[in-house]
């Protein structure tokens, strides 16, 4: 995969962000950002706190409405589309604060994500046995099988992180937006986490990830987009972004005041 | 002339609604506690005043002072011994709401048992109407209500803008962490919010006891109006709550122009519902879609 992204021809665009702006009471949290999220690779959003990364996610998923600009999913604008419809189009996300279904069991957390219909019949999710089998597979892959009947609230921190990932694996989404999914993981869990992501990308999933830890950014990214104060400062190959002295001064300036 | 009469009545009632709603809004803004028992505070202070002034014939300033003390103690005690423990364990909107609602139920029934469930009112020369123009009757209480409401609101704004704890109270609605940077204990700020918010019901309680009268169930009604005014005005905006209270008071009275009195509460509900549908952020509020 890394090889592919370094080839001169870039993969096709799955989601296109065009001159996107979002202001809160005059303050521009996202300021005229244009960005292509390309198929089958991992794009990392980096930048200091308050750079507008999570706001960008909220705009893409429809949780927020942009002040100006456009968001195109496979060429069609999705601005103004309800969040649940955007999700059904194929964009799934995790949250920085996880937002697990805290009073439901681990098993139910994953199962309910597959059941997208508001009615009783789940024509697109397969039979009940089929669904249960898939939940098992996912819990197996994320190492949560022995916790299947535990309430999400009662999980340890790393387990909660993996449940958040298990939930997104249960969707049929083509694109995952991951908001700091690895923060606070110990090295062992982190290894497993990266392997999982790589497997999913190999399966054809497109990932956009917000990450602070530079080590993780280096090891995981195919492309990096650098945001600061709502503006997109740079967008390119990891090497060129990380070797840019101006960007690292902004980045580390914020990190070590 | 009837219309003018209704508007004047509406302003009198609305000023008092506004003041009560500001108390609720202040508590909600500063502590995020949905203080459903705010109506109970109103009922308690009104009945304390009634009992001392009209039954025991205590001098009126003492009666009002006693009402103030009792209601502040009630509010602060709730914060300390009911909301505090709930917040330290669960603290979800629901548990606080149920706890608060339970208190309101207990208070309403205690008052009903002690003072009876019928209407009572405090006789006072101040509520005797004078015919200002042909067919236009105004009692001194109307002027008193407006003057006191404006005075209280101005005093509150000064307090919130000028004093350390007042600024902290406004900050608490933004972020609890910010308050610690002021060197103030969030608990102390919360206590202060409950004391002030509860105190703000006293003028309305006393004047209502002289004008339209009291019954044991008045707390629930006051509660509906406070919540409605807070939402219509925009959550977190004291100015909004005050204006919305005024609006609700006027609307209730204007409804009398065409409808029977029992429908006046419907006006409150219709305005509330219209705002929830058309403008959920209220007059001055920010977007609130969860």
């Amino acid at each position: 995969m890394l090889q592919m992204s370094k080839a001169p021809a870039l993969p096709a665009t799955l989601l296109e962000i065009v001159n996107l702006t979002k202001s809160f009471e005059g303050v521009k949290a996202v300021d005229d950002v244009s960005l292509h999220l390309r198929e089958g690779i991992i794009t990392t959003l980096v930048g200091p706190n308050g750079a507008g990364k999570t706001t960008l996610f909220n705009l893409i998923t429809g949780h927020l409405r942009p002040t100006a600009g456009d968001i195109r999913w496979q060429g069609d604008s999705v601005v103004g589309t309800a969040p649940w419809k955007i999700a059904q189009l194929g964009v799934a996300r995790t949250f920085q604060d996880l937002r697990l279904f805290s009073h439901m069991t681990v098993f139910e957390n994953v199962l309910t994500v597959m059941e997208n219909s508001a009615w009783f019949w789940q024509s697109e999710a397969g039979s009940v046995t089929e669904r249960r089998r898939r939940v098992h597979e996912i819990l197996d892959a994320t190492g949560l099988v022995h916790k299947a009947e535990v309430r999400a609230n009662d999980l340890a921190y790393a387990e909660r992180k993996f449940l958040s990932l298990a939930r997104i694996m249960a969707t049929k989404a083509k694109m995952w937006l991951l908001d700091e999914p690895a923060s606070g993981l110990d090295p062992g869990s982190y290894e497993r986490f990266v392997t999982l992501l790589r497997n999913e990308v190999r399966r054809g999933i497109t990932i956009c990830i917000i990450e602070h830890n530079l080590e993780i950014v280096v090891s995981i990214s195919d492309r990096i987009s650098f945001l600061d104060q709502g503006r997109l400062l740079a967008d390119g190959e990891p090497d060129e972004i990380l070797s840019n002295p101006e960007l690292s001064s902004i980045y580390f300036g914020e990190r070590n005041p | 002339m009837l219309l003018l009469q209704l508007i004047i009545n509406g302003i009198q009632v609305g000023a008092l609604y506004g003041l009560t709603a500001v108390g609720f809004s202040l508590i909600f803004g500063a502590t995020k506690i949905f203080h459903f028992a705010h109506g109970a505070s109103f009922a308690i202070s009104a009945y304390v005043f009634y009992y001392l002034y009209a039954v025991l014939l205590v001098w009126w300033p003492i009666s009002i002072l006693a009402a103030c003390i009792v209601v502040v103690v009630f509010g602060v005690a709730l914060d300390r011994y009911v909301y505090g423990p709930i917040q330290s364990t669960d603290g979800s909107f629901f548990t606080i709401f149920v706890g608060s609602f339970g208190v309101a139920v207990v208070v309403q029934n205690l008052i009903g048992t002690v003072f009876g469930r019928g209407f009572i009112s405090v006789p006072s020369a101040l509520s005797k109407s004078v015919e200002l123009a042909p067919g236009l009757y105004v009692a001194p209480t109307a002027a008193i209500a407006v003057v006191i409401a404006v005075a209280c609101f101005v005093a509150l704004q000064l307090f919130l803008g000028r004093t350390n704890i007042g600024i902290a109270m406004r900050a608490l609605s933004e972020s609890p962490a910010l308050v610690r940077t002021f060197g103030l204990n969030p608990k102390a700020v919360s206590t202060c919010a409950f004391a002030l918010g509860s105190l703000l019901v006293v003028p309305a309680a006393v004047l209502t006891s002289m004008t339209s009268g009291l019954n044991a169930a008045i707390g629930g009604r006051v509660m509906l109006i406070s919540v409605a005014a807070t939402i219509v005005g925009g959550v977190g905006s004291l100015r909004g709550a005050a204006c919305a209270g005024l609006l609700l008071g006027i609307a209730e009275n204007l409804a009398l122009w065409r409808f029977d009195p029992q429908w006046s509460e419907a006006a409150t509900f219709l305005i509330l519902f219209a705002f929830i549908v058309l403008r959920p952020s209220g007059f001055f509020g920010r977007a609130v879609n969860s």
Partner: protein
Amino acid sequence: MIAYLINLATLVCINAILAITLNFIMGYAGIFSLAHAVFFGVGAYVAAFMALQWTDSLLFQLVAAMLLAGLLSAALALPALRVRGDYFVAASLGFQVLATTVFSEWKSVTGGIGGLVGIPPASIAGHAITDPVEFFGLAAVALALVVVLTTAIVRSSFGRSLKAIRDSESAALAFGKNVALIKTLSVFYSTAMCAVAGVLYADYLSFINVESFTIDASTLFMAMVIVGGIGTVWGPIVGAVLLTLLPAALTYLPFLPRTEIGSVQQMIYGLAMVLLMIFKPDGLMGAKQGEA
């Protein structure tokens, strides 16, 4: 004595249906409504009005009452559910106040403050149910059906969606759940079933008036759910049993004047709500939460 017990048991069944349906939206959908008594009232008035004017057929009464209550609640819920939970509480409180006024003023339909009297007994397939024991059987069957149906829904994919929305609405949205539709459907179901209790109530007592459908009633139903344990299967039933028997038990206290029983009952459950929230927010049956 037997007649007295049968009477209590019938009322317990009706109250249990009310508590279960309220628990369905409070415990599983996270919607806190103070207007449950309105839909209880709608069911009761529809049944009474139909019985007095057109038909004593229980089936027709049930269908009409469920539809009317469900549609009314959906009309209320669609706009109000778009906003925050505390707004819905306020909106439902306002709606309860408005509905109480309508119940007591719309004299041609509700009989005004005096209510409707002499409601003829309901009939199933031409057989009029006049015997209290038979009626208790009917109420018990209705309760059993509501329990089975509600439990089935809670355990279905729909129930999981509801719980997901309750736990995190934004996450549920982000995973493709049509939150507004799911919530509205759940409110529709809850209020339609609540209307069933209303129909039974009107047919059983053969007399109804606004006093059974006020904010005090809504509060009582909420207390049943909370005391028993919100979000559990048995909690609301336990709560309904306890709070229905409470006034009956209070009449055995000789020092209590009869006129104060209602008041004392409310004080007891008000206090119970406060203490439970402080010490045991999950309710009496709360230890079992999560199994559902």
